[in-house]
């Protein structure tokens, strides 16, 4: 659920205690603490937890320019090395020598929506030249669609011409660097790093990967998706269009020849969430790859945002919050510390319960329980329907409580009738959400059959691997 849904649940929880309602009516605003307690798990995770989380691999496809806070970063040639392979940078320099201008026909493999490869053949033009910026020299190559863009931008490329070149770094067989003109990083680097992390997790136990997003000038983002395909033992990364923070694609698709990155993985792994991970605005995700047992086999399991839904999202934490609130407010002499503590604990528990309706689940009673209890899969955390239905229910409960704890009652009808009049939108909303969840569960089940198809995976191994 979204943050406000949890928060408003806390606001509503406080109104079930007549003493707290009476305080609110008198202008004592301390019960707002209950809402803060209900939001606390997300607050702790997103404002503190994520910054302290371990990162074994940090994938930054397009490092930010330190002054402008967006990519590409303007670098000197001497700062680049083989470690920057596939990353997106900008270099400003002078054309020292044009090595070649070419044209011809090229064939390359692309992947369709189902993950199948097909061969594409097309005409191309290209240019290769040496760029110098005073700190070193680098070979620059512009090819195909990128050549057309490059020519439009700079006209004829001649020796002595000054240019600001954007592109990704590549490494030749002899170890020398090339800057390939492009408007995005190459996805291969992301795929290879994730594959390496999965393989290491299989041997070492756990690897956490932080994937940074790609922010471009004008507060827009290059979207890319990471898709783990267990039966094929592949990590596939697809570079997508430029999107606004609101998720609207505004064109800027990358050419097919640098749209996909595929890395093979040597070890078995399974995917616990059936959709590809999409990275665009806000911040990029962290994914933990953990060695685990699945159907009697050792595999690597993924966990999205490993720092999220941990101890902060447990019922145990709710008890601790209740205890802290009680102690603090009793010490400062607040008369209704017990009610406040109980309401705070219930508020936090409501958060845990509401999140349990989704996919991620939580470790509910640590240290008694050690692992996450899977969610009920009623809807995704961002679902407008479940968020609204829950938030509306909480508003309804608040109005209902305010009314029944006021004498004379401002709305002079029976409690049951008032409650029904107030909550019908939520009943309809939850009804639709439950009906939808059956379809969703069926789809997930089909996808999970595919993702966890270890038998098929083993057969492939017998005939020589993928």
């Amino acid at each position: 659920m979204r943050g406000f849904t949890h928060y408003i649940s806390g606001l509503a929880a406080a109104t079930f205690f007549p003493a707290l309602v009476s305080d609110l009516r008198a202008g004592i605003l301390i019960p707002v603490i209950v809402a803060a307690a209900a939001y606390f798990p997300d607050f702790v995770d997103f404002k503190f937890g994520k910054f302290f989380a371990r990162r074994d691999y940090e994938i930054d496809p397009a490092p930010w320019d330190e002054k402008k806070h967006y990519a590409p970063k303007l670098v000197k040639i001497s700062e680049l090395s083989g470690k920057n392979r596939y990353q997106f940078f900008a270099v400003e320099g002078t054309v020292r020598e044009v090595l070649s201008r070419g044209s011809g026909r090229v064939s390359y493999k692309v992947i369709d929506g189902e993950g199948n490869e097909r061969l594409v053949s097309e005409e191309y033009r290209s240019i290769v030249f040496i760029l110098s910026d005073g700190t070193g020299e680098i070979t620059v190559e512009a090819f195909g669609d990128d050549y057309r863009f490059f020519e439009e931008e700079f006209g004829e490329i001649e020796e002595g011409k000054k240019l600001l070149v954007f592109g990704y770094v590549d490494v030749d067989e002899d170890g020398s660097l090339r800057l390939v003109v492009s408007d995005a990083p190459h996805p291969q680097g992301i795929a290879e790093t994730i594959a390496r992390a999965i393989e290491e997790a299989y041997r070492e136990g756990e690897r956490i990967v932080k994937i940074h997003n790609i922010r471009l000038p004008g507060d827009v983002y290059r979207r890319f998706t990471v898709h783990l395909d267990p039966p094929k033992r592949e990590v596939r990364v697809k570079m997508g269009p430029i999107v606004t923070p609101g998720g609207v694609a505004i064109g800027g698709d990358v050419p097919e020849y640098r749209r996909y990155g595929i890395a093979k993985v040597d070890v078995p792994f399974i995917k616990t969430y059936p959709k590809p991970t999409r990275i665009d605005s806000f911040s990029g995700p962290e994914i933990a790859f953990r060695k685990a047992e699945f159907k009697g086999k050792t595999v690597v399991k993924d966990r999205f945002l490993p720092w999220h839904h941990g101890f902060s999202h447990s019922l145990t934490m709710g008890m601790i919050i209740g205890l802290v609130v009680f102690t603090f407010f009793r010490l400062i002499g607040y008369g209704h510390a017990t009610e406040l503590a109980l309401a705070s604990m219930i508020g936090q528990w409501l958060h845990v319960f509401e999140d349990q309706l989704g996919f991620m689940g939580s470790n509910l009673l640590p240290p008694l329980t050690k692992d996450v209890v899977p969610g009920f899969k009623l809807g995704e955390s961002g679902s407008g329907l479940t968020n609204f239905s829950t938030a509306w229910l909480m508003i309804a409960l608040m109005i209902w409580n305010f009314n029944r704890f006021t004498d004379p009652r401002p709305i002079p009808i029976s409690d049951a009738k008032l409650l029904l009049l107030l909550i019908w939108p939520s009943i309809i909303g939850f009804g639709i959400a439950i009906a939808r969840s059956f379809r969703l569960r069926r789809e997930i089940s089909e996808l999970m059959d595919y993702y966890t198809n270890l038998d098929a995976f083993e057969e492939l191994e017998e005939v020589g691997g993928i």
Partner: protein
Amino acid sequence: MLPLPDLLLWSLAGVLFGALISWIPGFHIFNIMALLVAVFGVGELMPVQAFPFFAIGAIVAYAYVSAISSVYFSVADESAVFLLFPTQRYLLLGRGHEAVLLYLIGAVAGTLILVVGALFIFPRVLPPIYQATSPYVTYFLVAIVVFMFMSEWPKEGDRGKTPFQRLWMAWRQILGGIFVFFLSGILGFIVMNTNLLPTTSAYTRLTPMFIGFFGMSWVILNILSNPPMLEQVPEDRVESSIYNTLKASFGGALGGTIAAVYPIITGGMGALVAGHMTSQRGDDAFIISQGVNRVIYYVGAFTLLFLPQLRLTRGAAAWLVSSIYTPKSYAEYLAAIGAILLSAGISFLFTYYLSKFIARSFNIVHIRKLSYVVAVTLVVISYLLTGPMGVVVLMVSTAIGMMAAAFNTRRSYCLGGLILPVLISMTGHTGEIMSLLGLR
């Protein structure tokens, strides 16, 4: 009640007045109405019973036509140091007219929702709900403020080299927001509780502060950033979906209604709450919901003044009008709804054609030049309404408004200028804070 022809005439005069000034960046209809009352008075040129209808026309026009200034005259600089609003992104892509059309879709939806609500729902539902919840307004207000702080999304922090560096990068933005809120609050407290501004400016003492927070700081940023005047496509084309439009309309209506009914809760705060409640996503949905929200917030709040069973005074315009004449009959309420529909139709056409005109000639007058003229005008308005000290308040609040942009935090933290002093007053601590600040 005025005869119908007079009533229509004054509503039309209001629309015309509102439309002519609402497209100018930094101008707010409430400030201009206050100026009108202060300079010309009401009762001589205009009958007192006509003023509510003149105001309704002007406010409807503002709710529609102000889309022009927020889309075309609020451009960020090329380096995009500050996060852009969706409308600014549309402008940078040459799709400013599309953004206006999206807004207009929302505004029309907002008007229809408002009219249907005013005719069939508000009179029956609002009074009992308001009766049951109004003693807890402070609770809601504090809750929204606390949520604003707690939910601020750290826009930086991911790329720090160490955990503490990441934490600091994230928290400097959050702390910046808190700083802006309290700084605005202190300024608001001083303006509201001292005789810094002349007592003759009773209805307009907050005007220079708000001009500074939201108008002047915006205009100065336009001047400093020297934005590119990119060619705009004047085509009538909108990329959205029926689903997004309905969802955005619902969210916008929810946020606008919360803000219209409850005091101090502004349209932005209502939108924040409703956006989270309905899990709203997408630039198109955001702009549509803004159209709905602003119409219901501005026009709906003012309409409550006409509702005989409730007669709530919400918003600066309602306070200004009610100080001169408060509508009393149900006939006036129905006439106000009619005036809203009429004004909305005219405002829609005015906004649409003005947007087409501006899209075609966008790069003729540079926004920087226009901003200089507006900046001078805003100073003159502040001086006329509140004297030389008003100009000082304007300068201080402008600096605070620009701080919010520099810290990359929500501009709405400047609402601390209103929220904090009101909260202090509601909880009965004004005297203590006055002593603490050495103001008595």
